[in-house]
C-alpha cells in the first residue's frame, strides 16, 4: 500500500483545540435557558451559560439582535447600569450562579459548528462566542440553544423613523434594560403572542393607544383583547397602517380601514404616538441552529420556521437541543413561561442522561402547541399585502441596502449599478424559476435585499411574504433564506482574533497549492502522472 500523507494544503491535522471546554453550553439566559442550565449544573455537569444582553448601544443601533428601532433611552450607554438591570430582571440568574453555572452576560454566540456531512475536521462541536472585542471557541459536549424570539418587520412609509420598534425589542428594552423611550404607542398585530407582549408593556407603564389588526377581528385570545380594551386601548380591527410621521422620531401614525385584500376601505385618520410597535409575528430565532445545519421546517402550530426536535428537544444534530421560544412559539407558551422552562429541564435531563449522569425526576408533561389560532402563512402574507403592497410599493423593505418592495417583486438590480434604465433588466420573479416557488436566496443575491449589516433581521420574513405574493404560492412554500455564521456582525479584528494552527500559516498562498496548476499551458507535458509532478517551483494564480 502506498504511504498516504494528507494534502498539506488541506485542513487535515490543522484543527485548533478550543480555548475552553464544557459539558454543556447553553445559549440564551431566558426562562428556558436558565432552567436548562440550572437543571444540568445541579446534576453535576460543567455548564457555561452565555447571553448577549446587555448589548452595547452601537450594536443596538445596528438592530442586532432585535429591531430596537432607536427606541432606547440614553441609559443604555451606561454599561454597568445595564448589566445591573439585566441581572435584576432575572432573579434566576443568581440561582444559576449558585447552582454552579458559569454565567457570562454580554457574551454573544455568533457561530455553532458540528462535524457532519461535508465537514469532518473540527475538534468536536464548537460554539463561537465574542465578548469585549475578543472572539473564541468553546468546545461543547452538548449545546442547548435557547435563543428566544425576534420580530417580523413590516414596511410602510416612515417605518425607518426612530420609535418604530419590534415588540420583543420593546419588551426587552422596558423589562430587561429599563430603557424604553416611547411612552404612548400604536400596536400592530393581535396574535396571542402579540397581545401578551402588549399587556406586558402596559404593565411596564407604556400606554397602548391603539391596537391595529388588518383582519376583520383580532385573531388572539379574547380575554387578552378584553384586558387591553379595558385598559383604554382602542381596538382597530380591519385596519392597516399607511405611514408613520414625525420630524426626527415618530410623532403620529396614519391608519385606514382596509378590505379583505388590504386595500383602503374608508377614510384615514391620524393617531398621535411616540412609538409604533411591530407585533405582527414573533419569530423563533433559528439563526445559529440553521447555520449549524440542524433541520428546520415550517410548522404553522409553532410559529413558522422552527427546528425539528424530538421529545427531548433534540435537533437533527444529536449534540444540539433547542428549547424555549426558538424551538417554537404558540399562544399558551407566550402566556406561561413554565412551558419554556419545562422544555429546558427536559433537554437538560436528556443531556445529563446522555453523558452518563443521574438526571432528576421526571416533571409533569406540558401541553404542546395544539391547533394554531391563525394560519401564520396567510396571516403574515395578509399583513404584507395590506401594509407593504398597498401602502406604497416603492417603500423600502430592506433598510440596510435600501431595496423597495417593487424592486424585490421585479427583481431589479440594485441602484448602485445604475442599470435600471435598461429595459432588458426588467425581469419578473416568474422568469427566475419558471417552475417552483421563487428562491429567497437567489432573489436576495440579485436585489441585495437582506444583505446588509442587520443580516436580514428586519426584512427576511417580509421578503418571503413578498415572494409568496409575487409567486402566487402560500408563504410556507417559500424556503427559509439561509443563515450563515457569524450570525452577529463581528469586525474583522474581532473575528480574526480566533487562533490559527501553526501548520496552517504556511499554507495560505496559492489556492489548492498544486504544483502544476499555474504552469503556462505551453509548458505542460502531454501526459500527466502524479509521480512526474513532484518537483518544480510553486507558481501562483
Amino acid at each position, binding site marked *: 500500500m502506498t504511504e498516504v500523507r494528507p494534502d498539506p494544503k488541506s485542513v*487535515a491535522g490543522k484543527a485548533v483545540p478550543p480555548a475552553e471546554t464544557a459539558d454543556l453550553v447553553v445559549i440564551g439566559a431566558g426562562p428556558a435557558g436558565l432552567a436548562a442550565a440550572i437543571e444540568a449544573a445541579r446534576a453535576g455537569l460543567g455548564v457555561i451559560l452565555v447571553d448577549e444582553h446587555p448589548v452595547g448601544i452601537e450594536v443596538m443601533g445596528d438592530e442586532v439582535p432585535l429591531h430596537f428601532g432607536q427606541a432606547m433611552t440614553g441609559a443604555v450607554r451606561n454599561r454597568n447600569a445595564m448589566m445591573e438591570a439585566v441581572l435584576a430582571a432575572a432573579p434566576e440568574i443568581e440561582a444559576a450562579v449558585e447552582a454552579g453555572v458559569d454565567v457570562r452576560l454580554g457574551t454573544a454566540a455568533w457561530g455553532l459548528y458540528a462535524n457532519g456531512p461535508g465537514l469532518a475536521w473540527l475538534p468536536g462541536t464548537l460554539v463561537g462566542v465574542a465578548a469585549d472585542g475578543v472572539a473564541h471557541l468553546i468546545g461543547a459536549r452538548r449545546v442547548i440553544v435557547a435563543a428566544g424570539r425576534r420580530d417580523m418587520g413590516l414596511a410602510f412609509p416612515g417605518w425607518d423613523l426612530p420609535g418604530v420598534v419590534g415588540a420583543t425589542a420593546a419588551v426587552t428594552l422596558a423589562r430587561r434594560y429599563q430603557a424604553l423611550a416611547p411612552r404612548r404607542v400604536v400596536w400592530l398585530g393581535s396574535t396571542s403572542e402579540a397581545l401578551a407582549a402588549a399587556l406586558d408593556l402596559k404593565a411596564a407603564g407604556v400606554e397602548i393607544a391603539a391596537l391595529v389588526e388588518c383582519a376583520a377581528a383580532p385573531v388572539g385570545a379574547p380575554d387578552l383583547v378584553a384586558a387591553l380594551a379595558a385598559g383604554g386601548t382602542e381596538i382597530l380591527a380591519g385596519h392597516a397602517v399607511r405611514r408613520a410621521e414625525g420630524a426626527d422620531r415618530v410623532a403620529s401614525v396614519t391608519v385606514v380601514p382596509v378590505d379583505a385584500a388590504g386595500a383602503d376601505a374608508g377614510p384615514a385618520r391620524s393617531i398621535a404616538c411616540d412609538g409604533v410597535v411591530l407585533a405582527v409575528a414573533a419569530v423563533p430565532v433559528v439563526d445559529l441552529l440553521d447555520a449549524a445545519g440542524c433541520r428546520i421546517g415550517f410548522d404553522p402550530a409553532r410559529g413558522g420556521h422552527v427546528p425539528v426536535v424530538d421529545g427531548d428537544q433534540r435537533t437533527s444534530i444529536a449534540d444540539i437541543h433547542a428549547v424555549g421560544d426558538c424551538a417554537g412559539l404558540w399562544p399558551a407558551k407566550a402566556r406561561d413561561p413554565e412551558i419554556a422552562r419545562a422544555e429546558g429541564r427536559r433537554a437538560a435531563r436528556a443531556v445529563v442522561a446522555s453523558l452518563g449522569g443521574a438526571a432528576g425526576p421526571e416533571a409533569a408533561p406540558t401541553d404542546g402547541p395544539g391547533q394554531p389560532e391563525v394560519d401564520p402563512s396567510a396571516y403574515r402574507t395578509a399583513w404584507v399585502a395590506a401594509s407593504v403592497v398597498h401602502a406604497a410599493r416603492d417603500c423600502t423593505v430592506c433598510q440596510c441596502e435600501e431595496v423597495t418592495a417593487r424592486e424585490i417583486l421585479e427583481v431589479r438590480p440594485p441602484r448602485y449599478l445604475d442599470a435600471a434604465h435598461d429595459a432588458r433588466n426588467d425581469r419578473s420573479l416568474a422568469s427566475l424559476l419558471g417552475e417552483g416557488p421563487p428562491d429567497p436566496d437567489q432573489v436576495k443575491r440579485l436585489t441585495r435585499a437582506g444583505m446588509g449589516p442587520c443580516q436580514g433581521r428586519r426584512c427576511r420574513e417580509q421578503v418571503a411574504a413578498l415572494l409568496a405574493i409575487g409567486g402566487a404560492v402560500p408563504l410556507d412554500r417559500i424556503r427559509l433564506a439561509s443563515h450563515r455564521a*457569524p450570525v452577529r456582525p463581528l469586525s474583522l479584528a474581532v473575528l480574526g482574533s480566533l487562533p490559527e494552527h501553526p501548520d496552517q500559516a504556511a499554507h495560505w498562498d496559492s489556492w489548492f497549492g*498544486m504544483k502544476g496548476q499555474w504552469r503556462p499551458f505551453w509548458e505542460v507535458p502531454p501526459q500527466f502522472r502524479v509521480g512526474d509532478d513532484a518537483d518544480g517551483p510553486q507558481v501562483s494564480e
Partner: protein
Amino acid sequence: MEDIRKAAVVIIGGGVTGLSAGWWLARDGIDVVVVEKGTLGAEASGRNGGGCSHHHSPLFREEQRLWPMMDELLGYPTEFRPNRVRLARSDEQMVLYGRALTNAAAQGFRSEVLDAKQAQELVPLAGEGIVGGYYYAFGGHANPHRTLQGYAWAMQDHGGTLLQNCAVTGFRRAGGRVVAVETERGAIACDHVVIAAGPHTGRLAALLGADIPLAVARAEMIVTEALPLMPLGGVDGNGLYGRQTLRGNLAYGGGPHEWLDLPHEGAPPKPSTPLAGNIARRVAELLPKAAHARVIRSWAGVIENTPDGRPIIDRLPEPDNVIVATLSSVGFGLSPASGRAIRDLVVDRACSFADLSTFRLDRFAALEPDWRERLGWLSAEAFAHRQGSAV
C-alpha cells in the same frame, strides 16, 4: 417541462460553464436546454471569488478579450471591473506572486511592480506591513450571481430553456450515441449532450463508461459590510483571493480546503467553519484600515478538481456525441471563453480560437490508479477507513 421532449443540445448543469455554453449555443439559434438539479449556481458557480485572471490557461486571451464586452453581449450587468492588484506582506509572497508576470508577459499583457509606497497609494485601505505588490493590467473580477443570472436570462432571450430543480438521472443510448437524457421529470431526446455538472461530472460520465478523474473539496469565503469604494476593487494577496464588490463589501477567501466524498444522493452539504476567523485576520492584515469592518456572512462551496488542476473540455471517444466540461477550480473567470469553446466543440468539433490540447481527457491515460492517495486528496472518513484497514 412536460412539453420539452427534445432539444438539439442538452446541457447537464446550470453552473457558469453550462449556462455560458447554453448562451453561446442559443445565440447561434441552436435549440438548447440546460438541466439543473437545484437552482442555477447551486454549487461553486454561485459561491466563488469572482476572479477573472487565469494567465496560465489557453483560454486566457479569450477570457481577457470577452470580459470587458460581457455586459453588452449579455444585456445584463455582470459587475465586471478590469485589472488587479496583489499585495505581498513578505518577500516570499513577493516572489510567488511575481511568477504570474512572466506568464502574462509572454501573452502580451503588461504588469507593474509596486514598491510599498506605491502599493499603499493604490490601495487606500492597505497600511503598514506591505512589502510591495504587483499591478496587473489584465484580469479583473465580476459578481458571480449577476453573471450567472445574466447567462441564464440572455440564453432565454435567445430561445434557450433552463430547467431548474430537475436532476439528470441517466442516459439512453443507441448506435454508439446518447439519444436521450433521462431526468427526474422525463426524458429529453437530443443530438448532443454536454456534461457540465461540476463535482458530479465524474459520476455522470461514469454512467457512460468514461473515467473522469475528479476529486472535490470544500473552500470558504467571508464578506464584510460595505465600505467606501477603493479606486480599484480587485485587490488581493497575503494568501487571499477576493475583491471589494461594487457595493463596497470586502469578499475574500483562501486558506485550507477540506477534501470530501461526494454524497450518493442529493447536493453536497456546504457548511462553513471557524476558518472564517483565520480569513478575517488575513483580510485585516491585508487591509488594516478596514479592520473595523464587520463580517456579516461566511459561506462555503464545493469545488471540482482534476489531478493536475486543469480543466477537461473534450469530446468522449464513445459515445461520440458527448462533451465533458469540468473546469477544475478556475471556472468562473474562464466561463465566457469556456462556453464558447464548448459551443465550438459541439458545433464544429474543434475550438476555433485556442489550443485545447492541455484540456484533453487522454492526458490522464497513464495516471496512477491511486492518484487520490498519492496526492493525499482524501476525506477524513477515507483516511480513517484506510488507517482502520491498515491495522
